C-alpha cells in the first residue's frame, strides 16, 4: 500500500468518526423541541383572539389586558400570581441564609467526617414530597397550634425541602475554598466571625446566586406541599390555580397567567446564570498560570 492511499484512508476514517455524532445532535435538538413545544404553544395561545385554547383565531391582547375576561381584570388570577411570587421571595429570603449557615457549620465545625450529620441534614432530598407534605400537614393541624395553614405553613414547608439544595450547592463551593484563607484572615486580626463575613461569605457569592435561583424556581414550581398547606382561595398559587381550572372551562387568560410565571422565572435563571459566570470568573480560586 502506498503512503498516499494510507493517509487517504486515515482521512476517511477521521471523517466518518466526525460524522457519527450527527445522530446525537439530531437527538438533542429533537429533545429540546419536544420539551419546549408544549410550553411555547401554551404561551402562543394566551395571545389568541378567540376563547379556544387549541384553535388559533388571530392575535390579540384580549386575555392579557384588554377584555373583561383578561388576566389583568381577574382578581383570582392576579391573586394567584401575587401569592406565587410572595412565597418564592419569602422562600429565598429564609432558605438561602439558613442553608448557607447550615452548610458552613457542617463543613467547618463538624469536619469532613460528618457523614451521618450531613446525611440527616440532606435527608429531605430523598423523602417523597407527598410524604413530606402529609407529615407537615398533620404536624401543623394536630400538634403545632401556633402554625396555621396558609402562607406561614406554606413557607415553612417550602423552606424545608429547599434547604438541602442550598446546602449541597454551598458545600460544593466550600470544598474548593482552602481553610488557609480563613486562617489568613484570623492571622491578620479577624475574629472567627469576621473571617466568615469578610472572606468566606464573599467567596461563596457564586453559590449564593445559584441558591437564590434554585430556591425561587423550586417555590414557583411546587404544587404538592403548597397545596396541602394552603388554607383558602387567598393562598392559592398559580400551579394550584392551573390544576383547579385547567380541566374545567379555562380561557386563554390562564395561559397568560402561566406565561408571566414562566417568563419571570426564566429571566431570573438567565440573570442568575450570567451573574454566576461573572462571579466565578472574577474569583478564580488560587491557581496562578
Amino acid at each position, binding site marked *: 500500500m502506498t503512503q498516499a492511499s494510507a493517509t487517504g484512508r486515515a482521512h476517511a476514517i477521521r471523517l466518518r468518526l466526525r460524522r457519527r455524532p450527527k445522530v446525537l445532535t439530531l437527538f438533542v435538538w429533537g429533545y429540546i423541541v419536544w420539551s419546549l413545544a408544549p410550553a411555547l404553544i401554551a404561551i402562543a395561545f394566551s395571545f389568541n383572539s378567540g376563547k379556544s385554547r387549541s384553535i388559533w383565531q388571530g392575535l390579540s391582547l384580549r386575555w392579557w389586558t384588554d377584555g373583561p375576561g383578561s388576566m389583568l381584570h381577574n382578581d383570582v388570577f392576579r391573586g394567584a400570581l401575587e401569592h406565587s411570587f410572595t412565597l418564592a421571595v419569602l422562600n429565598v429570603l429564609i432558605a438561602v441564609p439558613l442553608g448557607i449557615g447550615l452548610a458552613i457549620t457542617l463543613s467547618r465545625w463538624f469536619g469532613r467526617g460528618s457523614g451521618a450529620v450531613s446525611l440527616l441534614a440532606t435527608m429531605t432530598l430523598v423523602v417523597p414530597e407527598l410524604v413530606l407534605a402529609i407529615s407537615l400537614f398533620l404536624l401543623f393541624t394536630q400538634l403545632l397550634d401556633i402554625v396555621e395553614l396558609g402562607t406561614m405553613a406554606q413557607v415553612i414547608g417550602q423552606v424545608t425541602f429547599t434547604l438541602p439544595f442550598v446546602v449541597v450547592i454551598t458545600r460544593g463551593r466550600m470544598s474548593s475554598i482552602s481553610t488557609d484563607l480563613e486562617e489568613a484572615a484570623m492571622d491578620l486580626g479577624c475574629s472567627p466571625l469576621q473571617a466568615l463575613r469578610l472572606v468566606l461569605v464573599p467567596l461563596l457569592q457564586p453559590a449564593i446566586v445559584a441558591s437564590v435561583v434554585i430556591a425561587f424556581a423550586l417555590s414557583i414550581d411546587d404544587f404538592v406541599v403548597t397545596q396541602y398547606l394552603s388554607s383558602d382561595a387567598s393562598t392559592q398559587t398559580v400551579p394550584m390555580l392551573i390544576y383547579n381550572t385547567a380541566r374545567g372551562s379555562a380561557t386563554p387568560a390562564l395561559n397568560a397567567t402561566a406565561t408571566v410565571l414562566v417568563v419571570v422565572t426564566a429571566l431570573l435563571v438567565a440573570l442568575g446564570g450570567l451573574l454566576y459566570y461573572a462571579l466565578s470568573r472574577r*474569583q478564580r480560586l*488560587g491557581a496562578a498560570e
Partner: protein
Amino acid sequence: MAGGEVRLAKLVKAFDEVTVVDGIDLHMPGGEFFSLLGPSGCGKTTTLRMIAGFEQPTSGEILLDGKNVALTPPHKRNVNTVFQGYALFPHLSVFDNVAFGLRRQGTPRAEVRRRVNEALAMVHMEAFAKRRPAQMSGGQQQRVALARALVLKPAVLLLDEPLGALDAKLRKILQIELKALQQEVGITFIYVTHDQEEALTMSDRIAVMHEGRVEQVAPPEVVYEEPSTTFVADFLGTSNVIHAVATQATASGCEVRVGEFELTAGRGAIDARGETKIAIRPERVTLEPHGSTGPNRLAGMVERVVYLGNANQIIVRLPTGEALQALVQNTGEKLAYEQGDPVRAHLPAEALRVLADTGAAEIEEQAAAAA
C-alpha cells in the same frame, strides 16, 4: 525593633492518639532568622501552627516576649504568617489584600495607603497594586503575601515553606531577598522548610527536627559540619555513615575500629565507647593509590564512578561491605581511578566524627556551648 523573643517549653501536640510534636524546647532570641528543618511529618509545621495560634498545644508553653500565648487566639497574637499556598484573598486586589490587616485594626485611611505602598515597595510590587491574585505568577503572589504579613509590623514572622511551590531559579533569588528583608526589618523570622539548602543559606540557627523532636539546634555551619546525630548527618546533604567500634581515647580524639582498620576520629562524641557510628562528608574523603600508607586509611575497591559535571562521585566498597562515597573535584585531568581498581581512602581525623545518638537534652547543651 525590640522584642520578638520566642520560647517554646515542653511543647506537645497530639492529634487523637498520634503525638506529632513530642516535647520540644527551643529559644529564639528577638531578630533571629530561625529555621525548623526536617522531613515531612517531623512536626515542624504543627510547631509553627501552634506559634501562630491555629493549633492549641496539648501541653507546654509558648512564650512570646515572656508572655504565655499558648491559648491566645490567632487574631490576638502579635505574629503573622506567610502561608505555603500564599492564601491571598482571591476576591480582593493586591492593595486590599495588603490593607486587610491594617483595616481590621482601624488604621486611618491615609495611613493605610501610606503603609500599604511602603510594604509593596519593600517587595518590589508597587506596580501590581490593582491586580488580583489570579492575575499574578507564583513568585509575585509570594511577594504580596510577604507584604501583607509585614505591613502589620509583627514581632515575629512565621513562614511555612513559602518557596515550596516555586521553580529552582526563582527560589534562589527569593532566598537572598528574604534574608536581606529580614535583616532590614530586624524582626524574628521562624522559617519552616524541608529543603536543607534553603535553611543553610538563610538561617542564623537551624533546629533539625525528626519525629516530633528536636535533634540538633545550631548555626548552619555547625549542623552541616558537626552533625550530632545520625539523622542530622544523613538529612543534611550526603554523609557517609559507617558502623564502627570506639575503643579508647587518644591524644587527638577517639580510636575507632572499622573491620580490621584502626582510625582516629577527632570530632563528635569522642568519649563514646563500644558500638557506634562514624560520619564523614564525601568531599572530605581523599582517594590514594593502592599501597599508600599512613594513619586513618581504609582499603577498598572502586565500585562505580559517577560523572556529576563539576565533580566525580566515586563509590568505594569497603571490606566490611559498606559503601563509602568520595567526591573528587573535576580539575580537567583524567581521573586516576576506574571501576574495579583497589584504592586507599584517607579519612582525615579532623573530618571524622563519632555520632552520638543520645537524647535531645545533651544536644541542646552542645548547641548552647557552640553558640
